[in-house]
């Protein structure tokens, strides 16, 4: 495994750990942005350039800003008075550790069946465009409908209530 992979993986995992463990909510949001950036770099390392740039554009350019705005609008950046973890964090930790153990066991035990280095796929944006308009046109239209519904729904849910209604 190359040094680049270890660096990028370390960056992503460090960002994710910081996002989960830090006390200040805005620091958590910025740390998860670092994790998103690390993941985008991993996509680029895996020769998926379109997915990597889409990850940067959507997650860092939009979702991170959305999270930060939500934190500011809900006064999450005030320092918390008591602990930031729930009353029995051990349950969540044990669950997560158990799931990681299961995944790790499955991955390492099936390592001999996994394929090895294959040739670099040369995928151009034109191929992606043809696929989106050809084979995947139905998911594309459904995602468009879903995004429109989510847009309208989010606006309605977060809108200030009118003066008359209560």
């Amino acid at each position, binding site marked *: 495994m190359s040094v680049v992979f270890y660096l990028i993986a370390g960056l992503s995992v460090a960002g994710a750990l910081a996002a989960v463990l830090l006390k200040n909510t805005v620091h958590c949001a910025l740390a998860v942005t670092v994790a998103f950036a690390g993941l985008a770099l991993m996509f680029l390392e895996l020769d*998926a350039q379109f997915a990597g740039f889409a990850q940067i554009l959507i997650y860092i350019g939009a979702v991170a800003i959305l*999270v930060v705005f939500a934190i500011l609008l809900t006064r999450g950046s005030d320092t918390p008075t008591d602990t*930031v973890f*729930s009353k029995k964090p051990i349950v969540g930790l044990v669950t*997560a550790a158990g799931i990681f153990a299961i*995944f790790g066991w499955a991955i390492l035990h099936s390592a001999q069946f996994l394929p090895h280095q294959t040739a670099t796929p040369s995928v151009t944006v034109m191929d*992606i465009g043809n696929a989106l308009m050809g084979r995947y046109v139905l998911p594309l239209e459904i995602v468009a409908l879903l*995004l429109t519904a989510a847009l309208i729904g989010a*606006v309605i849910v977060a809108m200030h209530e009118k003066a008359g209604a209560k």
Partner: protein
Amino acid sequence: MNPLTGYLLVAALLFAIGLAGALTRRNAILVLIGIELMLNAANLNLIAFWRYGPHPEALTGMMFAIFSIAVAAAEAAVGLGLVISIHRHTHTTDLDEMNRMKG
């Protein structure tokens, strides 16, 4: 070690960290951050299998990951809209205090 194994282990680790965050933090927005980490880990899994699997020219893994990114962004938007709306009612985002059905 197989390069694919490395990527799958990193994805599993990120998923576990996201799950731990979603289950243990009190702030609703941090739970959403944990959910976004889990979705990202799944995307990494998809792209890794696309790259090292048979038939990468069919673009299945990449397409799946792109749709997953789009849907996750929409879900984050709606989720955060809900959190803001709840905050407007109860003036808190602490999940431990939202233990009554009545608003």
